[in-house]
């Protein structure tokens, strides 16, 4: 009977699931179970953080039965209560369908999406109610803090250093070394900062941790504060992240009530408190010196870092600034010891990394894998391959600072150093999968457009260089490019990289340089043949129907928004180029792939 009473229904209320009405599902469960007095089992319903597999939300988990239901709607609640809660039966149609094994799977843990994963930073997400501190404590929460308060600061720093943990925000600087340097400066007060200004397009791992397990970040920051001798910390969080702000604020208040924050923490005599600063929506504020300027009440412009933040950071005082995911790794390292952490991953890159696997991949979501996992494992085993089994073209990693990796490197090990070597970077962990319908010149243009908006304008090379690269790329995608443009792009890219002050400018040319390196043919096709094979650059695209393949089903002409397609039933159809607006609807709808993409001029 005890076991029965401990049954829980966990309803994911991360941003992805909320958009699919998961909160209504949660309310319906609550209502249903309160109404139905025949149920002697009283399941506990919790709104949990993100389960990672956002594509299949809302996700509902039933414990300890270990049943996971996906795409649950309000209408399914009755059936789940009747069958699963009352009679211990599973509702098969809501189970996860594994695309690799072509089977429905009862527990999400057996799904290939979750199988290759190892959760450290995401250990609690989807398992606890982020606003219930007891849930966190039940899963070893604040145990690391208790242990740390009985250690000396040197011991803690040594533990982090030996673990081999490197900053998860992008550059991969050794965390222990950062703490140690800051510890050595005897200039007080010192500060601890959490960088929650996640801005890389296509990355949402920090958002999920802040929403789903805010206490792990808080605990990591308190431990650091104790180790370096700081009494105050700030969490700089993007203002757009409503739920993250709410949950972190709630967690701070809970932690204060329980004596984990505030004066004389757990009777150790150590004082520490945290404050949230809302970001203003500037990408450059993810850069540490810009972020610090923003907390101080200035515009977020970076400064030259001749003097590091560990010596003179916030208000010119020694400061440790780490990324959300880095903080979430600290408590398990303290509890399990550095040897445990060092064993995970590969030499020089220890532990796990959270990736947000997005784009043209079957299973979109958050994935945490040991460092050294290959790109192929990530995209195919965990991600389930490309949507519609189209050909893989590239992945983009590292956000606007990163690069595009072609299929030749599918077996590359995902770690800081390997990615660096081929001109991309780990960045915060966004992995954007692209297929043959993605145009690489357009991708480069997209990033230059993004960065030209986000450059703070302090350095001329960054402000003007990016804009000029964008203009050149625009010309190429509009059919006005010339072959010399390629050399010019390389030259400007090199200048921007060398002459800019901060990380944004220094890495800004990467998307252009890597696409030029690995997809030069595509640039040449745009420039010389005036053709975009992916059908993305509209000026360089035309559609025509291959009469040998057309079966005359009339689907294309029925769906054409401008009536540009003519032809009678069972006869080959024809697109009138003068009317066609190149929307591509016909190509998407054609059951026989008879609609072909041509260059600027119709070929057939």
């Amino acid at each position, binding site marked *: 009977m005890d076991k029965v009473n401990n049954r829980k229904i966990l309803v994911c209320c991360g941003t992805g699931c909320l958009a699919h009405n998961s909160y209504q599902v949660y309310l319906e469960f609550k209502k249903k179970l309160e109404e139905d007095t025949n149920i002697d089992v009283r399941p506990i319903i919790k709104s949990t953080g993100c389960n990672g597999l956002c594509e299949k939300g809302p996700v509902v988990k039933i414990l300890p039965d270990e049943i996971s239901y996906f795409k649950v709607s309000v209408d399914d609640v009755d059936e789940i209560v009747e069958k699963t809660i009352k009679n211990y039966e599973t509702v098969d149609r809501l189970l996860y369908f594994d695309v690799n094994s072509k089977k429905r799977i009862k527990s999400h843990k057996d799904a290939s999406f979750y199988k290759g994963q190892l959760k450290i930073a995401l250990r609690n997400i989807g398992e606890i109610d982020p606003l219930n501190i007891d849930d966190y404590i039940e899963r070893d929460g604040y145990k690391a803090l208790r242990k740390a308060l009985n250690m000396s600061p040197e011991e803690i720093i040594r533990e982090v250093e030996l673990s081999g943990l490197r900053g998860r925000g992008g550059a991969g600087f050794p965390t222990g070394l950062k703490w140690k340097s800051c510890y050595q400066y005897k200039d007080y007060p010192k500060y601890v900062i959490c960088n929650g200004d996640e801005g890389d397009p*296509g990355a949402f791992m920090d958002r999920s941790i802040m929403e789903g397990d805010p206490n792990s970040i808080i605990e990591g920051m308190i431990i650091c504060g104790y180790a370096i001798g700081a009494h105050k910390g700030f969490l700089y969080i993007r203002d757009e992240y409503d739920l993250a702000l709410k949950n972190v604020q709630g967690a701070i208040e809970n932690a204060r009530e329980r004596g984990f924050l505030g004066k004389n923490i757990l009777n150790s005599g150590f004082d520490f408190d945290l404050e949230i600063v809302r970001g203003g929506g500037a990408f450059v504020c993810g850069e540490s010196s810009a972020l610090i300027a923003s907390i101080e*009440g200035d515009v977020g412009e970076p400064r030259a870092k001749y003097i590091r933040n560990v010596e003179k950071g916030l208000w010119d005082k020694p400061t440790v600034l780490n990324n959300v995911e880095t903080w979430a790794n600290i408590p398990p390292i303290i509890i399990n010891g550095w040897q445990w952490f060092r064993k995970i991953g590969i030499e020089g890159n220890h532990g796990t990394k959270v990736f947000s696997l*997005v*784009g*043209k991949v079957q299973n979109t979501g958050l994935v945490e894998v040991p460092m050294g996992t290959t790109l192929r494992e990530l995209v195919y085993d965990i991600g389930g391959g490309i949507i519609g089994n189209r050909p893989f073209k590239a992945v983009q990693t590292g956000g606007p600072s990163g690069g595009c990796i072609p299929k030749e490197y599918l077996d590359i090990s995902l770690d800081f150093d390997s990615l660096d070597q081929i001109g991309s970077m780990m960045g915060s962990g966004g992995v954007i999968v692209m297929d043959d319908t993605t145009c690489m010149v357009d991708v480069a243009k997209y990033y230059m457009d*993004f960065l030209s908006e986000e450059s703070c304008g302090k350095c001329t090379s960054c402000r003007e260089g990016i804009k000029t690269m964008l203009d050149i790329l625009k010309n190429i995608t509009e059919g006005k490019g010339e072959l010399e443009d390629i050399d010019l792009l390389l030259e400007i890219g090199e200048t921007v990289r060398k002459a800019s002050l901060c990380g944004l400018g220094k890495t800004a040319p990467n998307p252009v340089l890597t696409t030029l390196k690995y997809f030069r043919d595509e640039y040449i096709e745009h420039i010389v043949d005036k053709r975009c094979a992916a059908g993305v650059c509209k000026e360089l695209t035309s559609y025509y129907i291959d009469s040998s393949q057309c079966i005359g089903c009339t689907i294309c002409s029925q769906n054409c928004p401008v009536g540009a397609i003519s032809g009678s039933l069972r006869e080959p159809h024809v697109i009138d180029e003068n009317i066609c607006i190149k929307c591509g609807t016909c190509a998407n709808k054609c059951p026989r792939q008879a609609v072909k993409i041509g260059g600027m001029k119709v070929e057939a």
Partner: protein
Amino acid sequence: MDHMYRELVHKYPKEKRYTLAMLQDIQRQNGFIPKEAMEYISEYLNLPMSHIYHLATFYKALSLKPKGKYVIKVCNGTACHIRGADSIKEELYNILGIKPGETTEDGLFSLEIVNCLGACALAPVIVIDNKYYGNLTKEELKSVIDQYKGAEIYG
């Protein structure tokens, strides 16, 4: 006029570091940052008006122009971009007759193109008044906008 901002501004200590927070609160309350509000903060914090203006124009979350009743944010993150955010944008321009940063004449809608909203599984996604509309197609878009227009007419 000043008393409008008094409560909002005085909630914070007289320290420069709260400038952004004050501006964000005003943005939230008014939908934009009026000149008078900047003057009030400048006086309260004893900082030059140029500093407040610098902040108000630097951060994207702040706007000097009034916004519409519903702010439509179109995500232009990479995942959305490669899953067709461009055609969503175009369609919105057609439906609303405005470009990013503009407001419709009836004051109902403002349009913003924003960087990644961190909801990539829903790509392409737009947000209207904190409600997410994911995996959008051009066809669905019109009915979403019509819902808001309808709500105006029929209450």
